[in-house]
Each structure stands twice: as C-alpha cells, then as structure tokens.
C-alpha cells in the first residue's frame, strides 16, 4: 500500500486544477472551487453522481466552456483554453459520452478530419499506415477503411481514442467510457489505458461505477454537487467509503407520510423490453406500487430506468411479462389509452412533454383537448380552456402568469410545472416521474417535491425514478435499486439512515450488499 502511495506521490504533476468555478444561469453552481492534481502517466478517475459537475469540469478543460474563476496549469504553466482546437494543440484529447463522428465517412477519414497537416489528395489513404501502427500499439483493433455507421459502439469509441492519439494527445479525457460497452469491450479499453500509461500518457476517466475505479484508477477525485470531496488512492479506501463519499451524508429530511394502504395500483410481472440499441434493457423485472406510496427507483442512469418508465406508459414495447394497473392489464396498450386509465407521466426530457412553440394554455390542454368538458367531438372550447389554464397557472404558480406566451420562453422549473399541472389534473391513480427535478434550482426542486407529495396524499401511487439519491431518500416509502435492467435490491423504511444510504449507494455501483 505504501509503495503505491509513494510511486504515485513521486510522479510529476501533469495537470493541476486550481479553484475552478462555473455557474450556469439562473443560479446553478456546476463547479465550486474545484482543485486537484493529476499525475503524469496515471489513470485518474473522476467519480461522482449525475450532476456532480464532472462533465462540466472536463468541458472546461477541453475548451468548450470558459470558467468563471480559477485556473488550469499544465506541466507547471498556467494555460487559458478557449476552444477545443487550443486544447488539442496543448495535447488534450477528449472522448465524449456521445460520439462525435460522421457516420457516412470511413474510420480513417474521421480520424484525419480537420487536420491541416494532411496531404491534399487522398489524405485518408495516406494516413492509413500510421493509423494501423497506432491501433497495433494500443490494441485498438479497427479497420481504417470501414464506414463508421457499420461499427459497434465499442468500435466507435476506439475510433475516438485513435483520433485523439493521432493528434498526439498526451492527456486523454474519457467521459463515462464504459456506459456503452459490453464487459469484454470494457476489458479491452482498460488494456488500452494501461498501454497508454506505459507510454507516459495521462488519462482522466469520468465514471460513477465504483468497481471501475478500483480496477483501473491510480488515483481518484470524488466530486459531489460541484465540489471536490477528496482526492485519494483507490487502494487506500474501501468500496463502502467511496460510495459514501460519492452520495454524501446530509441529514435526510423526513416527510410526513400517509399510512400505507395495501391496495396495489401498479404491478409489473417479469417484464422484459429492449433498449434503443436493440440491447435488452429490462430483464424479467417485477415491481409493484401501492396506493398512496412513493416508490423510489435508485440507480445510475442507463441501467434501464428510462425503459422502465416507457413500458409502463406505453411508449416502449413489452417483449415479455405483463403490466397491471389495479386489476386491468395495460401491457402494450396505446399510450393514450393508458393515460386515460389514470397514468400520469412526467418524462425525463422536458421537451417530450411540451410543444415549445405552443402557448402555455395549449400545452396545459395537451391531455384534455379531445374529451369533455373541452370538446364534445370536433371543436375545442378554447374559452373554457383559457379559463382552465388561468386556474392552473395560479394554482401551480406558473411564472410569468401568462397563458398565451409560447411555453419555450418559460424557465426550466416553470416548464416542469406546466407538465406537472397538466398531468396531475387528470387525477391519476399512478404517477410515473422520471428525474422530475433534474436541472432545477433549489426552490424549483422544493416546489416539485411538494406537488408530488400532494398527489401522494390524494392517494396516487408514485413511481419516482431519480439519479439523485438525496431526492429518493427524502420522498420514498420504499426504494428499489436498478442495475443492468434488473432490480438488485429493495428496502422499505419509515426513516432512512446513513446505513441505508451507504447500502443503496453500493448497490447502484453494482456491488451486491
């Protein structure tokens, strides 16, 4: 253990972040005086929950955002990076979570795209030898002549890494690289990272998976809510400690809860479904929600939560199993029929629930326009709709209180209120809420939480899917943990303790408690 510490301590500093601060309007503090050092020839993990500020920090480092304060020092020299091109010139390469490749071009063409030094004629062919040599050296097997659209996600990632290496990157940033990989591909990636380390290259590895930190990182910086919690050596901490640092230990506020009834509102029996990439996203998942109960779904984004919400509301096909709302089977019914049976949905992407160009009044009517009292068939009674929207605007405190402005002009929090107002006014039996407070400021979060509790008190069952563990601990009667399309843990409590948080945090990282 001491050896590891010594050898890490003795390495020269490649990059130092000094008090980096970044605010996003209106008042989100994405990075708050972030400081840490990355040593040369190491893999440095950046660990944290969604929204901890990891990606923002790396986007600043790569010149995509400019910081409001602080400085970056590379090899002892303070640098100002105002564009990705400058970052590339400084030897920084970045592999984004969503690949930035042109699907119709070949691998070689994508790699050399935008480089000035290539030859004018047949640049792709002339660079092939060098690309092959690089892939040989770092174990990045991919055919330079293949078209990018033919490649798997793992191969695309290899192209991105090759692109950075071809540009002589000495510092490589990887943003959640394993989220798109199969376990074997992840192993290959780790082998590549080790080969790069041998060459003296430095990797910054953004992740929220605890096991990966243990496996590949020489050092880890844990971030939470925009701040650095600690920079430590993975060999010196246990998984439990890492988990606790990641999710924090604020006092869990207790919400008065209604006594539970035992009537089941929603029941999923062995439900399976495919994800967008034709990859099984839900595997024989069973789950139930009772009347007046808030069931929290904990888990790192991308473990099937989105698909879970979509199969319930009818937006994704169920390939196996059955879903019941009270006694009625709703498996693979049309979205509108499921909604009219009493299922409200607050989607993760706010744009999905709204039509930006349409007015607030029209958006509030998106569920009710075709049925009484607003329509008896063909025409819509817009006067009634107007009065209805005025009522909702004041009841849900939508600001500015104007019903005729396009909804896209509202702030994120107010747009979310429009969705919630519309969905809850349907008097739902079940509310499916997907990260309902993502990106909102503190007061916005509080307001949305209050609305959800109100719905619960009226007897609705609520399935709350959230990447924010604090939110789940604050609101849930019961928490289930999702990992790779399955429920790997479940807890029911009146009051949540520190111990619970630790266990759930571990479960989210894929460690069975």
């Amino acid at each position, binding site marked *: 253990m001491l050896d590891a510490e010594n050898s890490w301590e003795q390495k020269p500093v490649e990059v130092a972040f000094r008090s980096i601060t970044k605010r996003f309007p209106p008042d989100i503090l994405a990075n708050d005086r972030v400081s840490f050092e990355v040593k040369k020839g190491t893999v440095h993990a950046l660990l944290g929950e969604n929204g901890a500020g990891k990606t923002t920090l790396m986007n600043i480092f790569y010149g995509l955002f400019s910081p409001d304060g602080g400085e970056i020092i590379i090899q002892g020299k303070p640098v100002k990076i105002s564009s990705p091109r400058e970052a590339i010139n400084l030897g920084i390469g970045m592999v984004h979570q969503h690949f930035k490749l042109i699907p119709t071009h070949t691998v070689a063409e994508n790699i050399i795209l935008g480089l000035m030094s290539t030859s004018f004629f047949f640049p792709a062919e002339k660079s092939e030898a060098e690309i092959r040599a690089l892939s040989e050296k770092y174990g990045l097997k991919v055919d330079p002549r293949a078209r990018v659209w033919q490649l798997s996600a793992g191969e695309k990632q290899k192209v991105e890494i090759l692109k950075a290496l071809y540009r002589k990157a000495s510092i490589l940033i990887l943003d959640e690289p394993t989220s798109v990989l199969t376990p074997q591909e992840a192993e290959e990636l780790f082998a590549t990272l080790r080969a790069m380390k041998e060459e003296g290259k430095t990797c910054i590895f953004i992740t929220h998976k605890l096991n990966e930190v243990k496996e590949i990182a020489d050092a880890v910086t844990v971030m939470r809510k925009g701040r650095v919690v600690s920079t430590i050596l993975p060999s010196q901490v246990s998984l439990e400690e890492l988990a606790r640092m990641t999710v924090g230990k604020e006092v869990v506020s207790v919400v008065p809860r209604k006594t539970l009834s035992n009537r089941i509102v929603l029941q999923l029996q062995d439900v399976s479904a495919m994800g967008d990439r034709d990859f099984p996203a839900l595997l024989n998942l069973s789950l139930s929600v009772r009347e007046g109960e808030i069931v929290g779904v904990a888990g790192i984004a991308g473990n099937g939560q989105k698909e879970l919400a979509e199969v319930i509301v*009818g*937006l994704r096909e169920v390939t196996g199993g059955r879903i019941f709302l009270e006694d009625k089977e709703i498996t693979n019914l*049309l*979205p*509108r*029929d*499921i*909604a009219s049976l009493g299922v409200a*949905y607050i*989607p993760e992407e706010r*744009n*999905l*629930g*709204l*039509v*930006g*160009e*349409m007015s607030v009044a*029209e958006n509030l*009517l*998106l*569920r009710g*326009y*075709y049925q009484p009292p607003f*329509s008896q*068939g*063909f*025409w*819509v009674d*817009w006067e009634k709709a107007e009065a209805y929207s005025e009522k909702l605007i004041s009841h849900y405190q939508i600001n500015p209180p104007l019903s005729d402005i*396009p909804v896209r*002009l509202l702030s994120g929090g107010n747009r979310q209120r429009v969705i919630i107002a519309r969905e809850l006014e349907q008097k739902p039996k079940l509310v499916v809420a997907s990260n309902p407070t993502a990106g909102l400021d503190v007061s916005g979060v509080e307001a949305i939480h209050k609305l959800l509790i109100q719905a619960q008190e009226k007897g609705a069952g609520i399935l709350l899917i959230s990447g924010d563990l604090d939110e789940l601990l604050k609101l849930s009667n019961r928490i289930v943990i999702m990992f790779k399309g399955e429920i790997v843990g479940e807890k029911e409590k009146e009051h949540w303790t520190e111990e619970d948080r630790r266990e759930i945090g571990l479960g989210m990282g894929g460690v069975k408690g």
Partner: protein
Amino acid sequence: MDRKKLTQFHVELSLQPTLSSTVFSSLLAIILAFACGGVIFLFYHISPGVGYQTFFRGSLGSWYAFSETLKRTIPLLLVGEGLSLAFRAQVLNIGAEGQILLGAVAATWVALFSGLPSFLLLPAMFILGFLAGAGWALIPAIFKTRFAVNEVLSTLMLNYVAFNLVLYLIAGPWKGKGVRGFTYTDTFPEAAWLKTMGITRVPYFTLLVGIALAIGGYFFLKKSALGFELRIVGSSPETARFLGINEEKIILFTMFLSGGLSGFAGVGEVAGIHHLLRHPDHISLGYGYTAIIVAWLARANPLAVILTSFLFGALLSGGDALRVSLGIPFQVVSVFNGLILFFLISTEHLSRYRIIWRDKKEVEKNGS
C-alpha cells in the same frame, strides 16, 4: 442576448417573430426579388421601368387585367389552402402539380365518357376530381406511413407520372375526333362548363369555394381538436408520440385533403377555362409548384393564403402581359417565383430580430 450596436438603432434577437417582423421580412423578400428581376429586362434591352409598368398594367391596371389575375388566383388559392394544412403538419406534399392533373383527368372522363345526365355532370366532375387528386396523394402518403419513404421525393416523382398520363390520354385513347392534328380531347358538353362572372373568364363557384375554405381552414386549425393534433404533430412529433396522437392518421388526412383540393382545382381549370383536356403545361401553368411558395409566404396560415395567392396570381398575369406586349418569354415568371422563394428563405432569419430605434440625444447621453 445577441446585440449588435449601431449608431442610432440597435438590432436585438427577439424571443419570437412578431406579426410585423414577419410581414416586414416577407415584403423585403418580394422587393429584393423584383429588384434583382429587373436585370432580366436589361438582357432584353428594355428599361426596367417600362418592364414593370407593363407588368403592373397587365396584372392590376384594368378590370380585365384584374380578372385575369383573379382567374389565376383561384387554383393557387385552392391548392395553397391544402398545402398550408399539410405543411403545418410537416407533411411536405410537393406533388400538387400531379394532383391537379389527376383532377382534370377525372373531370374529363365524367364530362366526355361517363354518360351521366347533364345536371349531374358538374357535381360528379368535382366529386370525382377531388377523389382522384386525393387518391393520387394517398399513394405517397401510404408509402410514407408504411415504409417511411420520404414524401418529398415520392410526391415529386408522381408529378412526372401524372404529366405523362395526360400526354398519353390526349394523344391516344382520348384524342378528340374533330381536332385533326392537334393533341387534345373533344370539347366538353356545355352542361360541363362552369359559369363565369359576367364577360370575364373567372368561374365564381371555385372562387367562392376557395375563399370559404380559407376561412374554414383557419378556424379548423385554430379551434378544432383535429387541427390541434395536426399542429402538435407538425411542431413536435416526439410530443405527439408521447401523447399517443396517431401520427399516421394525420399524415393520411393532410395528404388526402391537400391532394383532394389540388384535384378540385384541376377540375376548375378544365371545367371553367379550357373546357377540354389539353397539354399539361397549359392546364396547370405550374400552379402546383407556385402554390408551394404561396403557402410558404403565407407561413402556412390559411387566411393569409388569400393574400399570397392573389399576389402570385398577379405575378402570372403580369408575366403574360410581358410576353404579349414586350415579347419576353413567359418563363420569366418562373425566374421571379424562384427569386421570391430564394429571398424568402434568406430573409426568414431576419424576422427573428427586431430593430430598436433610439433618437440621437439618447445615444449621446448614454455615451458609447
């Protein structure tokens, strides 16, 4: 906020295009198109002043000119109406030209070969013509909903099929018995002629239908449940899916309606003006393509189509006057059409800015 400061006024990105900024940028596009179009007159050694004078005299200068403009407004109004609804739903029907021709073909069959009693001829022509245009449009609509075939290409391609179908009919099976070497059909029986206003060649039935539909279409979009769904599908297909709106139904409906109205316009042309089926270029004058610009300029607002279709009707009759009086080919009108569309697209961006004028004193007071 994007702000470019100039000396006496500044330009600011406004949050949404206002009515005045839309009107302003549209007018600017038309003016710029005419300014550039003036160069064409110079090629013919005609001063642009004389050219435009002839142009306006021929389109609006007299009652006769006005009636000629009106005559051309009618098909643009009917077709532009349907296209507005389709464009609102983001269904890009480029096939109105072919749908017009199919309407004309159906009407010709009724008038010449159906053997219906004469009092039924006109109603049957309009109903069958509507259905023929609608049916023609449903072909690409079904391909779009079933196989996700891009409707821009398929509707456009079907125009050529319709064009050659008409050529085949007038030169082959439907070639008139008394027309000797010409290629067109026999003249329709008079019971199949539309009544025109006074001595003009303006059939008032189609004109009234066009205006009524513009008003109806406006209220349909604004007030009806189906119109609301149509706008949701058009502005945010993802949200429509989220709400469980049947997108296929909307695509089929808008294609059916826009194709049907084009067919209806085609009937109006043969029953009101030509009284026979002839070369496709003479039946339509490119109305199906011009109506795309008509609907675009109207920002797919059915009421505004009344205005824009009249504007393009004037452009067509003015072009006719240029040909007759100055010997300039009629195709010049296509150049104007193209220029207007070109400038419309390029000034589209402007409508999102607003200009804020400040008087000089204020500028000085603020320093800068």
